[in-house]
């Protein structure tokens, strides 16, 4: 049971990062490889406001989110928009370039040492033998609320209808009067906001260090790929699923005989995905693959 809680914590983080990414891929067909850096900048700015400026938590969070939004706005207008119409793969190069620049910027501004946000209400709750820290509980719940908001936005608002229309048939949507390019910008900014939330999550739950960026991007893309490229709900489900697998791999006493060495925690679930994709290359959740 404790493993479920562990998976919920790890999965929430992965879901935050991957959902926005999946939306971006589903609609723009663009891989944003600077995602990890966006996450870090969101987290670092929040840390700075909290630890350096001693501002209240809410302001810090908003500041971090603002920073993430700003970075992704820049990502869209400078590194994506001029290129992706010519060939979506061009953005692979431009976003890697952006990622490297942001890496340098992070080192310059926030230095190499790890940073974290230390909440004062760092108590733990115990119920039925399961233990969860209050900050972690807060993070898991906030993530679920955010994802529900995200679902509501996507499925029950005019804005969401527009996004889905562009995802499914952008030419048709445009000839109905939907301004696809500015919608693309909004989508990228939305993914930046989710990424920044992920960064704040990391700052509270673990700690931020500059080398985290690329592994984060890779992990998010694992969920995006397994969930069926561009299928947001598949991606979110896979993020939680991968996290659960990771916890099960090392946490379960397999067949009552042995534990899988902890070094395989990340590899086994990815291996599982690879094997799965061999048999079903469209991803776990093919059916509504273009549903956005």
């Amino acid at each position, binding site marked *: 049971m404790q493993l479920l809680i562990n998976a919920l914590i790890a999965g929430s983080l992965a879901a935050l990062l991957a959902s926005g990414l999946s939306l971006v891929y589903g609609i723009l067909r663009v891989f944003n490889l600077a995602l990890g850096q966006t996450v870090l900048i969101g987290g670092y700015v929040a840390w700075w406001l909290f630890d350096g400026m001693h501002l209240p938590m809410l302001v810090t969070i908003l500041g971090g989110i603002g920073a993430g939004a700003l970075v992704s706005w820049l990502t869209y207008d400078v590194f994506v928009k001029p290129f992706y119409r010519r060939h979506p793969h061009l953005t692979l190069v431009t976003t890697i370039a952006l990622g490297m620049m942001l890496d340098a910027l992070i080192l310059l501004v926030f230095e190499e040492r790890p940073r974290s946000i230390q909440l004062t209400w760092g108590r733990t709750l115990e119920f039925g033998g399961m233990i969860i820290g209050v900050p972690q509980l807060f993070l898991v719940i906030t993530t679920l609320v955010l994802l529900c908001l995200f679902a509501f936005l996507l499925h029950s608002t005019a804005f969401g209808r527009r996004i889905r229309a562009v995802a499914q048939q952008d030419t048709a949507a445009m000839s109905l*009067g939907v301004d696809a390019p500015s919608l693309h910008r909004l989508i990228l900014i939305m993914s930046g906001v989710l990424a920044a939330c992920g960064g704040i999550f990391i700052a509270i739950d673990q700690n931020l260090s500059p080398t985290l960026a690329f592994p984060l991007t890779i992990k998010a893309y694992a969920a995006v790929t397994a969930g069926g490229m561009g299928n947001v709900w598949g991606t979110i489900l896979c993020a939680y699923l991968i996290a659960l697998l990771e916890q099960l791999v090392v946490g379960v006493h397999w067949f009552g005989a042995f534990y899988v060495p902890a070094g395989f925690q990340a590899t086994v679930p990815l291996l599982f995905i690879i094997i799965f994709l061999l048999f079903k290359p469209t991803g776990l959740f093919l059916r509504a693959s273009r549903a956005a």
Partner: protein
Amino acid sequence: MSILSLSGISLILNGQQILQSVSFDVAEGEVVGLIGPNGSGKTTLFNVLSGFLKPTGGSITLRGKDITGLSPARRARLGIGRVFQNFGIFRDMTLEENVLVALEALPKEQRRSLGNLCAVVASTLAMVGLSDSAKKKAGSLSGGQMRLLEIARTLKSGKELFLLDEPTAGVSPKLTQQVADLIVELKREGKTILIIEHDLPFISRICDRVIVLDIGEVVLEGKPGEVKKQKKLQEIYFGADPTS
């Protein structure tokens, strides 16, 4: 007064001349058929008109306003509606949502003048007999039903100028008549229509004028009856029976 006016539109794509100084006017309420063999540039011309391709030269005016540099979305808001050859339907959205998206994309004043959007959605679906499927995914419709939905959606979202790209392609014979009726209905409502179609009898029946395109150029223009008699039309279709 002409609603749409093209002067000297040319397009070069990847070093190839796709359109060559295409010029013509379309009068308000007129129905113009655009015919020509495959690859003659008809759909490309539609793409230029709806803004997906920027012409290499020439200009387009809509009601006297130059729209050559405007984005597809801006043009749509100015009243150009497009019906796609391979269905401009959002398959993973419900029929209701398909219509709703079109209505919500309208400029504010126009949207307000429609009143209750849900009522408009309902009447749009009723118009093409799809009320029962309102909550279904559009992907479950037949080709003919998709086309009907698309045309009805374009009509109800207040478009003035219709670009219909082979509206009967991929439509079962049973529904072809219904599509044709809907287009006639558009005409009766005084909408201006540009239509690409291979079905010449259908063209002769509803069009006021026919423009023949070949290798990106306007080669013939006139009333359907006159154009049909021209030998050149036969030559362009390379012996293919134009009445089939």
